[in-house]
């Protein structure tokens, strides 16, 4: 009986081999599961988008707002980017735009949207 009492008639060197085998196995499993064939996400939500994609989406909302001047619609469109308030989303996008040499027109669109979001008061539907 070995020290573990599990595998009978096994020397300590063989036990070491088994431990090594399980460690190697776990390592192989982790490499396969994390690197070779990781879990694929195919239905992600917009809040996990890379920052530049989020900023571009915010810019699109700003460009659309320059056409329809509908702050409620803009706020609704921004809401899919996460739980952050619309002003925070637009502010972050504006900072990114300033740091990454966006055109003046794009920055102006974002500033206009930021102003609209700062003054926007959502109307809550009160059910009778």
């Amino acid at each position: 009986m070995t020290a573990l009492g599990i595998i009978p008639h096994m020397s300590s060197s063989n036990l070491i081999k088994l431990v090594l085998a399980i460690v190697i196995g776990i390592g192989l499993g982790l490499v396969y599961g994390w690197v070779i064939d990781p879990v694929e996400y195919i239905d992600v939500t917009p809040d996990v988008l890379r920052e530049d994609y989020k900023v571009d989406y915010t810019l699109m909302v700003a460009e659309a707002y320059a056409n329809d001047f509908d702050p409620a619609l803009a706020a609704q469109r921004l809401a899919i980017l996460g739980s952050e308030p619309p002003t925070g989303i637009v502010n972050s996008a504006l900072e990114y735009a300033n740091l990454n040499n966006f055109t003046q027109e794009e920055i102006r669109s974002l500033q206009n949207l930021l102003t609209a979001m700062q003054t926007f008061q959502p109307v809550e539907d009160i059910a009778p």
Partner: protein
Amino acid sequence: MSRFFKSILLHILLTLLFGIGLGLAYSWFISPVTYVDANPALLRADFKDQFRIVIAASYASNQDLARARARLSLLGDADPIGELSAQAQRMLASGEAFENAQPLAELATDLRQGRVSEPFTPTAFPTFNTPDVPLTVTPTAAEPLLEATEEFVVTSLPTILFEQTPLTPITTAVRTPRSTFTPTAGPGAPFALMSQETLCNPGTPSLLQFMLMDSRKRQAPGIEIIVTWDQGEDRFFTGLKPELGDGYADFIMQANTTYNIRIVTGGTLAPNIIAPSCTDPNGQAYPGSLLLTFQQ
């Protein structure tokens, strides 16, 4: 190979597999790879729809076709134009207003054409400048002196004369006005029946086919058509078969039945439509199809 050695080898192999299993369980279920920098192609279908709506709304504002195309490509659709059209159709079919689906349809059309459609812009309305004219009051009589008398005296009111220069329109833009202007029908303008073509295809059902074009001779999707006959009524929209055209719709006719057609947008009526009679190579008569082309 001794039995003992085989046993050890088997143990090692089994232990290795067990370890691989543990590793996979941990990496797939307990602590899977988390995406924090995903791209739009991985978005759920409804979020992709929202992205397309915003891309189309942005395009309606900036008219930047190349940028809209690049943004659509991020969604990883095999056929971005088809996806736009299909989404517009889905929106119409679900009862959304045509105005909501229109930007998608327009972007799809422009992408298909490869150019920006000329938007409907009314001509500039001339502005008139009313100059500030100083008011001149000229009394007609000598300054009447008001005296307190017991009798009530009516004094004539002074006549006020305005010195005003004639109104002249001022042009705010230096742009040369167009020599001619062809008015473009708006989206609610009525459709007119332009042609009625008989189609004889033996073995196919007798179809009442519609092709609706807007004022710019582009196929018009999302136009509601009502077909009534003595025993019923059917309503449908153009563009629900995008493979046949955005302005296409059809309806199966019965022989010897008279149909009345109404295009809801603009209220155009086309009464007394019946299936045409065709003759097959054997001399047998059969009901053919009709292609009605309407244009705004």
